[in-house]
């Protein structure tokens, strides 16, 4: 066409387009754009590894440098997905080893990664640079040794909250002396000791190392050694932050921290001895991220720390009860979260974990006040994850009014179906205010006593909602119907223990094809409805996960234990069975 741009110009323009969504939009404009785009796409994100198969991907995008894959549904994090369900990465690695010899980056989340897979990765990609495994399992330190030994140009090795079988701490020694390219190393989730001398030598020969996250076993006394070898660090994760109190250790640690002029993020801090905390005060004013969530913070210490972190954008803490304001007559006790509200005006993300979520202790009272304070004091607050024992509609409404810019709001009231603790009413109005005021809300997790009314609010106002998590809520199918019919942007919906049955699901069947996935467990969806859905909707896989005996003779009207529905172009997972039945502890062979 005479009037169109030459290919080289278009390609150049496309090279500035990095977002997945934009790339996908570009490819839909016309055939020639589709062709051009597919040749120059370098990064692929597959949100559900069963939605597409690698052969299709390789055929369409021949020159990819970076792949990100996600496997198990989110509720796998809370032990709701049985072992053997799937998420095996090996078949993908086999295909991409063949199709993308120049691949440089692999990022996996919630997948089962075997040592075999790691070995194959280490040997198949000559220019491999980045391996990030988040919430993965199935591999051991032997697999890590293969990566260390064979990936000559490795820049990033991050294990984020993975379950790794610790066979030996010596895997780190497999990094050859010639490997000096490391920029990021995260071994925080490893349970056993790594060889410290190997670690020391590795850090010493990695001048580009910006991120170093140690595991628990690296003792406090050794931290200063490492920090002095890598003063250029931007992110640092300590090991256990406790040791015998010795002034020489304290002094060298203080000096080492003050030498780190670029440090912006701190994490680790398993088991804190408060006396050692001031050692890192010199870096507080530069910190943008602080993760103290592995140690229960005590109020005075937390207050001191956050009061110095004026540039803090992201804070993760684990809180004990008495941190929350306790109204004694007219006096409200100062607390860590109050201090946060006063000092950290740049705060964007707050995550508060409970220190002992499973023990109902009479003296422990996690309240809503801390969150209300922070919502008042921190104008840039966008993302919240908050565990507490009590909540009220008025607090939620206050938060919604204070922070209409919230994009992610996840509230977990520890007791299922807990009502407003003041009025004993459901929390419909509170959560309703959140969705109504926070027009950019993309992610919402709810808890407490909730009727169908809250779902009506969500369906009416949650137009930008991308992911919704619901537990022990609702009264009827109407609730689910409101969400499925009203939330235009909904892609991920996960539901547990709600009285939702067949009607809403079947009435909104076509909506499911516009979403990535739907998870429903301990609800009331019948086996018959699942089969019907599977038969009528060829673009969906309808998986019934049910561990009862005699699944073959399950009556049509019987509710299934767990249900996972997702759209796919890869066809059924197992032969032509529309509904996954049982006995599937086999490794995938295709």
């Amino acid at each position, binding site marked *: 066409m005479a009037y169109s741009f030459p290919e080289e110009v278009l390609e150049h323009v496309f090279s500035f387009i990095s977002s997945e969504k934009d790339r996908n939009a570009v490819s839909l404009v016309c055939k020639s754009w589709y062709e051009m785009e597919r040749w120059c796409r370098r990064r692929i994100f597959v949100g559900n590894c069963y939605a597409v198969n690698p052969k299709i991907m390789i055929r369409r995008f021949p020159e990819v440098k970076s792949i990100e894959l996600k496997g198990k549904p989110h*509720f796998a*994090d*809370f*032990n*709701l997905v*049985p*072992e*053997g369900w799937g998420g095996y990465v090996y078949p993908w690695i086999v295909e991409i080893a063949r199709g993308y010899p120049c691949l440089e980056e692999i990022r996996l989340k919630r997948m089962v990664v075997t040592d075999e897979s790691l070995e194959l990765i280490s040997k198949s990609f000559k220019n491999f640079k980045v391996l990030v495994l988040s919430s993965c399992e199935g591999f051991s330190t032997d697999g890590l040794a293969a990566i260390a030994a064979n990936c000559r140009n490795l820049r990033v090795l991050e294990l984020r*909250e993975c*379950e790794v079988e610790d066979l030996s701490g010596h895997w780190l020694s497999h990094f050859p002396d010639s490997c000096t390219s490391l920029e990021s190393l995260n071994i925080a*989730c490893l349970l056993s000791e790594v060889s410290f001398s190997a670690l020391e030598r590795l850090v010493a020969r990695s001048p580009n190392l910006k991120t170093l996250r140690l595991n628990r076993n690296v003792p406090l006394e050794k931290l200063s050694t490492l920090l002095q070898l890598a003063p250029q660090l931007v992110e640092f994760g300590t090991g256990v932050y406790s040791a015998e109190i010795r002034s020489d250790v304290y002094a060298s640690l203080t000096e080492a921290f003050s030498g780190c002029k670029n440090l912006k993020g701190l994490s680790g801090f*398993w*088991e804190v001895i408060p006396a050692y905390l001031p050692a890192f005060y010199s870096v507080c004013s530069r910190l943008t991220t602080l993760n103290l969530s592995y*140690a*229960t913070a005590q109020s005075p210490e937390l207050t001191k720390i956050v009061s110095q972190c004026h540039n803090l954008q992201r804070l993760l803490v684990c809180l004990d009860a008495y941190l929350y304001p306790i109204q004694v007559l007219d006096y409200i006790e100062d607390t860590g979260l109050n201090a946060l509200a006063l000092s950290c005006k740049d705060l964007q993300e707050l995550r508060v*974990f409970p*220190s*002992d*979520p*499973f023990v*109902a202790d*009479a003296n422990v*009272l996690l309240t809503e006040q801390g969150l209300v304070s922070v919502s008042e004091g921190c104008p840039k607050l966008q993302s919240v994850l908050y*565990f507490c024992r009590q909540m009220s509609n008025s607090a939620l409404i206050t938060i919604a009014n204070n922070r209409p810019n919230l994009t992610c709001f996840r509230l977990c009231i*520890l*007791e*299922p*179906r807990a*009502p407003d603790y003041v009025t*004993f009413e*459901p929390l419909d109005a509170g959560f309703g205010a959140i969705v109504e005021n926070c027009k950019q809300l993309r992610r919402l997790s709810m808890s407490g006593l909730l009727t*169908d*009314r809250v779902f009506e609010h969500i369906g009416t106002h949650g137009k930008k909602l991308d992911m919704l*998590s619901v*537990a*022990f809520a609702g*009264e*009827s*199918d109407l609730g689910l*119907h409101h969400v499925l019919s009203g939330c*235009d942007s909904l892609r991920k919906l996960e539901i*547990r*223990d709600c*009285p939702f*049955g067949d*009607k*809403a699901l*079947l*009435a*909104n*069947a*076509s909506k499911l094809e516009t979403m990535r996935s739907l998870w429903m467990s*301990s609800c009331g969806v019948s086996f018959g409805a699942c089969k019907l859905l599977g038969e*009528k909707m060829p673009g969906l896989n309808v998986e019934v996960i049910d*561990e*009862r*005996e005699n699944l073959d003779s399950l009556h049509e009207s019987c*509710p299934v234990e767990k249900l996972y529905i997702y759209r796919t172009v890869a066809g059924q997972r197992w032969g032509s069975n529309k509904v996954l039945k*049982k006995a599937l*502890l086999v490794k995938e062979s295709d």
Partner: protein
Amino acid sequence: MDRKRSSLNLFEDIDLNYKATELRLGLPGTDDQPEIKTSLSGNKRSSSEMESSTCTDENESRSASPTKEQVVGWPPVRSYRRNIVQGKKESSEMGSGMYVKVSMDGAPYLRKVDLKMYRSYEELMEGLQKMFKCIIGLYSEREGYNGSQHAPTYEDKDGDWMLVGDVPWEMFITSCKRLRIMKASEARGLDDSL
């Protein structure tokens, strides 16, 4: 984006029956809860308890008997994080036996149990029996698990497979790496070698 919902809706004739779904501010544990929610038995409370007590009262009554039977996956705290917190609290007990995998011969899926949730072999057997819907029975020194169809075994720190019940409970939870419920016939071989 074109919302083709109405034309692709294959189930338009499904009547949502709004009348039957009158909104009520019902409390949990009332009639309209479906039968299947067996996992919630530990958390349902009677309506009188809810209305009359404050939060602290509830907490007090519950701390008297810590809940053994917790709802699976609730609160939504990752086991990674739970283990860390619990490990800190109970470090005196040498907490290396937290979540262990449990398999049963013939069952399609593995499960995981938190050994910290149980205080004795009896409780563990009860938990396993409920989980796998099988009968294990109790261990007797003389006869092992003879008399039942299944026998629980575990892999210890040294990689050996042992019959569950032969060592004191405290020792068991620190050395147990994984559990396997075998068919009784296979387990007899283990028994002989002890």
